[in-house]
């Protein structure tokens, strides 16, 4: 039986790979958690880490630009979960609102408006092997440095909304206002750049 047109090869292989890797991952984590080898927080951490990495890998390797944008949303939601684990509820909410709402919609809009979808697109440049090597080396260096470090660190209690508001408006009031100005200028600039030019006579 031939596959329906929408069900292309990447989706099928992606589903099979997700089931083959994701299900054993989740089952193993659940078993470890139930047996008491790792705490519940660790189970959640590893699940979120897996989610973030799946989303990140998907968004930098997918050949379908819309899949890449949606994978970014998956990774961003995982990051929001990490913020929750790090006891920063406010940041988790902001992350969901800004990335799940604003940035994802903006990216999808731009993809729709610039996507000439009639020809097969080559999404990766010819520098791909070199880029892979450089990124791999950088990742190995960073992770090895970070895993080996030792910190005198303890996790805090929840950072409350009230504390964040006090810090943000009392100690960082000026940067906050500057940030709002940056947003305003960026949005006005984006409109000025992207808007269609009208007749020159109108401008004069």
């Amino acid at each position, binding site marked *: 039986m031939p596959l329906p047109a929408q069900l292309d090869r990447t989706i099928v292989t992606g589903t099979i790979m997700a089931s083959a890797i994701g299900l054993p991952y989740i089952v193993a984590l659940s078993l470890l958690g139930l047996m008491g080898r790792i705490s519940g927080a660790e189970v959640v951490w590893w699940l979120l880490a897996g989610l973030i990495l799946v989303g990140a890998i998907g968004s*930098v390797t997918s050949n379908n630009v819309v899949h890449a944008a949606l994978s*970014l949303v998956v990774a961003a939601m995982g990051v929001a979960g990490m913020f929750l684990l*790090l006891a920063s509820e406010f940041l988790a909410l902001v992350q969901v609102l800004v990335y799940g709402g604003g940035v994802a919609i903006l990216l999808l809009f*731009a993809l729709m408006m610039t996507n000439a979808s009639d020809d097969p697109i080559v999404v990766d440049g010819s520098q791909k092997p070199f880029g892979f090597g450089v990124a791999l080396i950088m990742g190995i260096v960073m992770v090895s440095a*970070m895993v080996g470090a030792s910190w005198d660190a303890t996790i805090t209690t929840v950072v409350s909304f009230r504390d964040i508001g006090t810090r*943000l408006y009392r100690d960082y009031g000026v940067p906050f206002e500057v940030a709002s100005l*940056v947003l305003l200028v960026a949005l006005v600039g984006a409109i000025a750049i992207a808007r269609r030019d009208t007749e020159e006579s109108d401008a004069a």
Partner: protein
Amino acid sequence: MISLNHYLALSGVLFALGFYGVLVRRSAILILIAVELMLAAVSINFVAFASYLDAKLFTGVIFAIFVITIAAAEVGLALGIVLRIYRERSTANVDEASTLKW
């Protein structure tokens, strides 16, 4: 027990993935997506350090708020530029938009 190193390693991997995307992608929008991944990695780092080492002042959380703000502004502005380039050249690939003046 989740240590600070867990978060640092995760953000290192995430940053490297975003870096890979920035290096290999051709479309400006896909490069932007990869930049967002790198910014998310940096945010995780900030918040992790704030939660573990800076319980009283949590400056990293404030920094992460600013990172998200600037990221949103950057995406809006960059997408405006991408739309403009696409209208002028009918391509959004950075390797084809290589001249400064048409």
